[in-house]
């Protein structure tokens, strides 16, 4: 059991294909590239099929794009947020495709490693702060960390807290997505181990555990599909919220 769990954890950890090479792809980056390739193929086909009366894959892509543009971007930022849609949309579809790909064995989710999630969270951090600074200027942007009306003696403390809260954002953003993807696969692996053990040591207890773990596999697969979409949505909507906050930095 312990050995099997150890094996599972090893399988789910970041493994370079070559230990010796200075720059080697890892198991996650391999599937990440597969996910990106699928995403590009999907959109090449979908954008070719764009027509006034949509059908098939074009319809799916349009529904998804419309969901992100109106359901997330316009909803959070208002109509003027539309110009940030390409960035936010790229993030949504990148996360979604990789999350979903991880649900097809033997693929791993490209988002199941901090290397991915943290990098993208840092990109979000740089972009939203960049947007804020570009909008109101560096001085006003930094000043906006202290809400107007704050008593003078409290200002340094508030400022410090704001800085910390901003700096924590890429961590929370990255860790949340990574942990969800990683934990989902651990759960799937654990019930797979249960099933395997029940078959290996076939006992009366095993006879009960086997169908239950099998059932759990099915339930967790469905659950993971929901999590894949939900986490893509959360990552994206937080990005939109951060950008929106930066855009309105000078207003309070």
């Amino acid at each position: 059991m312990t050995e099997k769990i150890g094996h599972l954890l090893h399988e789910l950890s970041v493994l370079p294909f070559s230990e010796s090479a200075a720059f080697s792809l890892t198991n996650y980056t391999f599937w990440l590239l597969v996910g990106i390739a699928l995403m590009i193929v999907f959109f090449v086909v979908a954008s070719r099929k764009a027509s006034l009366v949509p059908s098939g894959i074009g319809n799916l892509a349009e529904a998804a794009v419309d969901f992100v543009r109106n359901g997330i971007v316009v909803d959070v930022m208002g109509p003027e947020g539309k110009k940030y849609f390409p960035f936010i949309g790229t993030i949504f579809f990148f996360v979604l495709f990789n999350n979903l790909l991880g649900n097809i064995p033997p693929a791993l989710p490209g988002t199941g490693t901090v290397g991915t999630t943290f990098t993208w969270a840092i990109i979000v951090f740089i972009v939203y702060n960049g947007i804020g600074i570009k909008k109101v200027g560096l001085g006003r942007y930094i000043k906006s960390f202290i809400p107007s009306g704050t008593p003078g003696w409290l200002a340094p403390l508030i400022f410090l807290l704001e800085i910390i809260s901003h700096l924590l954002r890429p961590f929370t953003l990255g860790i949340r997505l990574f942990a969800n993807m990683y934990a989902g696969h651990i759960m799937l692996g654990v019930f797979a181990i249960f099933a395997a053990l029940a078959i290996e040591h076939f006992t009366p207890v095993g006879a009960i555990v086997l169908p239950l773990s099998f059932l759990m596999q099915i339930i967790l697969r469905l659950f993971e599909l929901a999590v894949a979409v939900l986490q893509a949505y959360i990552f994206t909507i937080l990005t939109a919220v951060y950008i929106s906050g930066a855009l309105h930095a000078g207003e309070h």
Partner: protein
Amino acid sequence: MELIIPTTVEMAVNVVAFIVLFIFMAKFAFPPITKMLDERANKIRESLEKAEDTRVEAERLLEEYKVQMAEARAEATQVIEQGRKVAESMKVEILAKAREEAEAEKTKAIEAIKAEKSAAVGEIQKQVADLSVAVAGKIIGSSLSRTDHEALIDKYLTEVGSLHEN
């Protein structure tokens, strides 16, 4: 712990992935789709507006036709009413005229009859007078004077006249 320390390789791959994907999505994937979405939204909005305009126009026309119909109906009723009035007055007029004419005709006829009668009576009186004179002359052999004759005639005539009047 190494679980949450990102590796340089993965981070580098992801930075490249982001740049490539962002350029691809922003330049090639999203524009045709968002353009199509906007176009469709516009088209639908236009169609709806057009439909609304058409509906309003149709309602306006219907209202107009209703008014026209009512007007036409009122006019027709008026024309019929007027016709009836004219006919009525004409009838009264014609009847009155007919009555008048008939009356005139009748009066004329009565006048004529009266004239005829008086003429006839006059003629008879004259003949009777002459006859009487002749007869009387024969009987008394022209012994009567002119004055006597006339007195006799008048007396007779008065008698005949009163007879006739009765």
